[in-house]
């Protein structure tokens, strides 16, 4: 009874709190990257604008204007797609053969 009661209190209170805490800690860097992407270049390094600032989409426009963003994005997509398709193309028949006709 004692053990089960302990388990219930852990499951009901500590587990959700600890689980969410860990999840938020792990997600925080991604959130912070997203958060900072709405700051201007100058604001991003000023401690006084750490949490409160006027959000701007300037970075997103600059990214696509000043750099050849879409070409690089296209390169990434082409490499990853073709590598995956090619690996599947070669790998699936081989895996099929190994799974359904086990030799040796």
């Amino acid at each position, binding site marked *: 009874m004692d053990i089960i009661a302990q388990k219930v209190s852990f499951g009901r209170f500590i587990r959700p709190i600890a689980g969410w805490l860990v999840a938020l800690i792990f997600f925080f860097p991604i959130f912070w990257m997203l958060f900072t992407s709405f700051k201007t270049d100058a604001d991003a390094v000023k401690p006084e604008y750490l949490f409160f600032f006027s959000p701007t989409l300037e970075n997103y426009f600059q990214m696509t204007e000043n750099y050849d963003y879409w070409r690089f994005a296209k390169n990434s997509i082409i490499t990853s797609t073709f590598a995956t398709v090619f690996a599947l193309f070669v790998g699936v028949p081989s895996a099929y053969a*190994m799974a359904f*006709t086990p030799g040796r």
Partner: protein
Amino acid sequence: MTDRLLPRLLQAPAVVLLLIWMFVPLSMTLFFSFIRYVLNSLRHPEWTYPSLENWRGFGNYEYVLYKSKDFWFAVQNSIFIVGSVIFFTVVLGLAIAVLINRPFLGRGIARVLLISPFFVMPSVNAVLWINMILDPVLGLNGLAVEGLNKIVISLHDYPIIGSFFSLWPEIEPISFRATQTSAYAVIIMVTWQWTPFAILIFMTSLQSEDQQQKEAAILDGANAWSQFRNLTLPHLARPIAIVVMIQAIFHLSLYAEIEIVSRGNGNKNLPYLIGEFSSNNIGAASATGIFAVILANIVAIFLLRLVGKNLAD
């Protein structure tokens, strides 16, 4: 004989391609490692293209081992980074996987948040951590230490606790760009990125754990730790071995993080050293590459034995 024909035909492309892809680069690397092959050699123009006439024997290996001072440092650093990352990811992964194994409010969302770091590109991960979080001045690391110092100083004015806090020294933020500490920065960011992988693998195999065995253990009065040690850990032996193996393979070839964190400050691992050599001295780069292959095999065999022995029984 016809029922053997189809599987062979199906396997042929994979086997042939893998043979070519393993054999050709490996034999070229071996060949280059035994000749003088220097791209920017002004005094010896004949060294700038690969040829058997520039045979050097084991000269490149001797050069890498004895004359280039970075080799042993790079080997040490590679092993240090791989070992630390594997240790932290397995420990954290186990703890978090056990924590979120039971249902709780919003577990699905928490799980997605936990897995999300795995989908960040390595170079983005490195830029994000080194510039925005670990930077000693502008990153959260520097800001947090500065804030802490300010709080401590503002507490000096209070009557009783002030004299206590005035004894506290001002803290200096750790600079993660120095030669000694940039390996720690790499370990932190790679651990952050790869713990989700360990969680994912451990979580799926925890789902298949025998619950009746667990209930029996609870009835027998086993506490949480001995349940974990005697039931869960043996159950997870193979997933742990898989996580360790895959991570050892992946992290021995770590490059993007090293490049972005420690560009120019002297901290390097084996792939980075190979990259440095290959901008000029292809012979030395190939010799280092052969050493890297040998090291990878040693690490793989060693880890398989270690994990297999400790957890199989």
